[in-house]
């Protein structure tokens, strides 16, 4: 297997093994590795991968084939998917079998409690990275603020909010408006 595919497999397996509290907790880690360290994908492509998980059935870690495809085509999609779901599958089977007592040890829970704050830090950096690359003018900042407010204060499904964002983007992209919007740069 070419080195890049092996690396994809291994990195996604690592993501899955550190995903204490669900797949969403390692988005910051995925951003750090796939965007900043490896340069596999751009911040915009990472943002799109995250956004698309809201309109895709299944867990958040189903972004693996999206990232894998952008890195190495169909083979990359397969390898990244295998990497991210193989270890949890094995651990879940172990839980159903005799390994249960080892997998319920307080040390595992303590590991998750310690890892949580570090993951928050990485998650914050990921959101900042996405913001830097996506919010290029004040109108897009307003779209982000409105989307966040709707997410926090209403029961609207993220799919609806994302569709609204896309529609707002189309309107803001009208040539007459586009040139009139003040640009910004997030530090």
């Amino acid at each position, binding site marked *: 297997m070419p080195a890049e595919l092996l690396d994809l497999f291994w990195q996604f397996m690592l993501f899955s093994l550190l995903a204490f509290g669900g797949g969403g907790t390692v988005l910051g880690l995925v951003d750090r590795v796939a965007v900043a360290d490896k340069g596999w994908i751009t911040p915009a492509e990472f943002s799109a991968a995250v956004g698309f998980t809201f309109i895709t059935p299944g867990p958040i870690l189903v972004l693996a084939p*999206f990232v894998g495809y952008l890195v190495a085509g169909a083979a990359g999609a397969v390898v990244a998917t295998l990497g991210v779901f193989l270890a949890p599958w094995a651990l879940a*089977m172990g839980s159903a079998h005799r390994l249960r007592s080892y997998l319920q040890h*307080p040390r595992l829970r303590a*590991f998750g409690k310690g890892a949580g704050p570090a993951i928050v830090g990485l998650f914050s*950096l990921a959101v900042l990275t996405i913001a830097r690359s996506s919010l290029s003018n004040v109108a897009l900042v307003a779209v982000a603020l409105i989307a966040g407010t709707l997410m926090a204060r209403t029961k609207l499904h993220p799919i609806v*909010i994302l569709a609204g964002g*896309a529609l707002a983007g189309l309107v803001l992209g009208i040539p007459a408006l586009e040139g009139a919007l003040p640009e910004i740069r997030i530090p």
Partner: protein
Amino acid sequence: MNTPTERPDGPAPLRLGIGAIGVIFFRMGLVAFGGLLLLLVLIERELVDRRPALTKRQITEAVTYTRLLPGSGGPLVVSYLGYVLRGVGGSGVATLMYLLPGIIVMTGLAVGFVALSTLPLLAPAIEGLLAAVVGIQSVYLYRFARKAIVDAVTATILVAGLGATFLLGVSAPLIVLLAGVVGVFLFTKSLGSEVADAG
């Protein structure tokens, strides 16, 4: 190796074939938009009410014994119950078929994204979509941070992790691993007593 959990709470289960397991979990995967809660409702409807292949107790056990594991909750529960239904083969087929709809859609979106993202009409729509992602992710970050940063110790781990990233250039997976090991030393005793008290 094929030893399902004991079932003292009900009659002998209906033994499903591998094909049936695949079809049932594929159908669940098609509508897997509501997280673990919706999945549990679907599992109960399909595998307890419609066909007595599982008991409610086994479903509860699946949630209990997988909640501490790393990974997404839904696939973990599916893998566990697939094993209960039909061993390694059942677990493999259930997990694969549950994830398949999402994998197909995501791969299709990747192909479409590569092909269409340069189209003049779609570029502004994608910009708006990505701006909305920032808003939504900020809310998720806030909610996750509220659960994870609960005291001075966890706040210190957060600051130390950020410092290690910016000042020392430590790799992200290593930071998470080290923070987890620190957690093992700091929290095992208190979490062990919590489990003992809960009985």
